């Protein structure tokens, strides 16, 4: 049942985890809003795609959800990071930083640097 790590989906999952890490408990709209705010207009995201992803993360045990009351006092589903999710976030952050650092170093290298 392993799926190919789609770049966008993989990144989106990381963004969701990080958002929940920063904001604590949050509902779907809040997560979408936050991602939008931080990425600016660069990331054109169909907000709806968030929900299947949230369900997947829940199935994997990274987050849990429960019903609660939203700002305008309506029923909303709130998502929260679990211990597993936090650990996953840590490893994925480290991996991401590592990859980014390696790629960055490749970009920095100029022809004259080579021996």
């Amino acid at each position, binding site marked *: 049942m*392993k799926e190919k790590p789609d770049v966008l989906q993989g990144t989106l999952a990381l963004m969701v985890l990080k958002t929940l890490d920063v904001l604590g408990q949050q509902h779907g*709209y809040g997560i979408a809003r936050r991602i939008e705010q931080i990425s600016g207009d660069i990331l054109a995201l169909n*907000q*709806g795609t968030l929900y299947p992803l949230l*369900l997947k993360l829940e*199935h994997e045990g*990274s987050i849990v959800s429960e019903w609660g009351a*939203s700002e*305008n006092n309506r029923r909303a589903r709130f998502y929260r990071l679990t211990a597993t999710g936090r650990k996953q976030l840590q490893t994925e952050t480290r991996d991401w930083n590592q990859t980014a650092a390696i790629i960055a170093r490749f970009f920095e290298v100029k022809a004259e640097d080579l021996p």
Partner: protein
Amino acid sequence: MRFLRRFFIRLSNFTARRRADQRLQEEMAEHLALQTEENLRASMSPAEARRQAALKLGAAAAIRENYHAEQSLPFFENLSQDLRYAARMLLRSPGFSLIAVATIALGVGATTAIYSVIDATLLHPLPYPRPSELVRIEANLPGVGAHDVGFSIPELRDLQNAGIFQYVSFCFFGSENVTGSAQPTHIAGATVSPSYFAVLGVDAALGRTFNPYDASPGSNGEVIISDGLWKRAFGADPHIVEKSLRLDNDLFQIVGVMPASFRDQGQTREQVGTELWAADGFSDRTPPMRGTRLVYETIARLQPGLSPEAAQGRLDALVASLKKQYPADYPPQAEWTFHLTPLAESLVGNVRQSLILLFGAVGLVLLISCVNVANLLLARASARGREMAVRQALGAARMRLIRQLLTESLLLFVLGGTTGFAVLFCARKFLLQFIPESLPRLNDISISWGVLAFAIVVSVAAGTIFGLAPAWLTSRLDLTTTLRQEGRGSNGSRKRSRLRHVLVIGELALSLVLMVAAGLLLRSFWDLFKVQLGFNPTRVMAIETTLPNPNDPKTDIYRTATQESVFLREALRRIRTLPGVEETAVSDRAALPLGHGQIDLRQRPLIREGQDVQSSQPPLIDTSIVSPEYFHLLGMTLLRGRLFADQDLEDTPSIAVINQAAARTYWPGKDGKGEDPVGKRVIVRSRVAKPGWTTIVGVIADARTESLADAGIPQMYFDIYQRPAKFLALYLRGQVDPATIAAQVRTQVQAVDPEIPVFHAETLGDVLSSSLSVRRFSMEMVALFAATALLLAALGIYGTISFLVNEQSREIAIRLALGAQRRDILKMVLRQGLTLAGVGAGVGLVGAIIVSHLMAGLLYGVSPYDLSTFAGVTAVLTAVAIASSYVPALRAMRLDPITTLHSE
């Protein structure tokens, strides 16, 4: 871990049909509400705010689909949908489903049945630890055309010490008289070397097996008994070990009882069911000479990790060095060699070929039944063209359609396969009766899990292969034409009907191959059945008996021919007085026509006066020992000289009778015209023979007493009143009741000597038919398969021609309306059937030539390219093809043009 957790949650959602649609709807509604509020705050009009929110969220239907796919397992969901739909489709056309399922059940069931036999005989390893290490060793003298000549004691020691084998052992299968009890019983027993059980690697359940390093010559007085004998004769006595029993008046000590599951190695049912093993080192009576070969059945366990090929190589090296060391014993022209065969292979022997033939035949039946079902599926495809077109028009992907159709055909095949297996399972007892008793490892045949797995794998594979092509062609259609033509689909079906033709041609070709094989086997069987026997088996009954054979010759009361003749003459006289008995005779068991020979059925070296005296490798000849009445009772004709007479006794000169084949082979004369062997002198040594010359006094006509297939096996007969024999067969000719005769004869024999067992009464007619049993079995099976194949092919051609007539009904109607003769229409349709049959027969003949070439070894008296068989079978096939296209042709001929054209 995460993937696994996710998978199990989805699986549980799928099985519980849990849906989270409600939750998503609520979340999305909330999402939209929040976004709309946000948009309103950004001073949009309410309508615009809602519109923008919805746009930002994306396509709701797609999200729900994705969400649902994440919630559950889409693959299994589709599968269960397809399965439900397929089941509904099958139920909707019960006639089609029934025929298809029955056809597949027939094919898979028959294939599985034959597979279960093959599984037990060819594939199942022998029931001993590390069975691949077990081998049989044979010594051959190809230079003088002698096979399995046996081993001498020094040769066996060389084998044991060569470092190639862990243990080497020999065994003599035979029978033992257990005496000393109320009724002397006769059991299948074997005399084995002490290393026998070490070779097989099986330990005793109670007590111990023999010490494999025991080198004491002769019997060491120890026996091991089977679990069955222990329970039957000793009441499962737990203290049986160290007790003794009497075999032919010799006292033996029981040292062990084998486990209940233990079966001896051997080719016949009798050998496998051996119940007593006596340990025997090499007799001290015979000096260990290299040329004195005493031991035949030799089995061994290879050193671990040594392959039979590598072992054969080392064995060849051993032979070469022995030849160099003992040039006098191994003259180069005899080309003495050792040959290794894996034990499993040597036990199955010549049955392998018959079984492979049967498996091939049943495989063809399976193929034909699959082709038939594929044909049915294609026929249905044209009926479902519209359904497929509508589905495609509504956006179903082609792969999705193929998947659905494939699910349908797989369901059909698996249903058929399980039906076939279920029928086989229920009928297994009934079917086992038809398997000849002489089939090796008959007891191991079972309908096991492995056989079930085979049935399922075959059904699934067949369903995939034969479902894929129809599914491919069904799903491939031209939407507009199909929909416009209201599913008549005559344009889109051109590919399909071409495939149908190919399938029918294939069916016809395959059934022709099967029929040729069956025809050739039938001809061989018939020829063997009708063969001139050279002896007359009618109304002859053979009953076996064994005289005691004690280890100490001094205690043997039947040691000399004179001693034995007193008993034999009295026993025969008494049997002759039984009601209905006209004639009696006695011989050793080697002379039992078509009986399986035992220890004494062995070729012996023939030393001819003036020819072979100096040679240490004389030719070998089959010998048997008979009473003077034997030839007359069996109706064997004397050609020259005389037969045995009453005045030939132990103290008169030793005489022998030979058959024509022996005369031809050993006394060819200088010019090849043959010289008269009568009066020639020979020496044929045996344990019981007096030293000195034996004179040949008569020549009888060849008879097929050794093998039905071969009349020309040289035979030499000795007089039982000159050479005593222990393993005897009593013959009586007359009108006797086979059910009670054994008891009557036993009473008479035991009136002479109460210690002598009498057993195994059989008419020679039964012996004859059981010697043909494996041949008869494979012939009958292949004939049955061929008949099935022909029936299926007839159905196939009938279906295809009917379908063609249906498709061309418009064309036919127009032709009729334009004034075509009805006779021409009939001819036109029949011609189509004949074309199919012709092409099918052509392809089939090529296949049949290949197959009959491969099975040449199974044929007797008929050439693999027998013209009359080939022609006859082709004629039958053509006739069947015409007959099965005749019905649809008649329908086409009687077509009413007006109604047909109106209905279109």
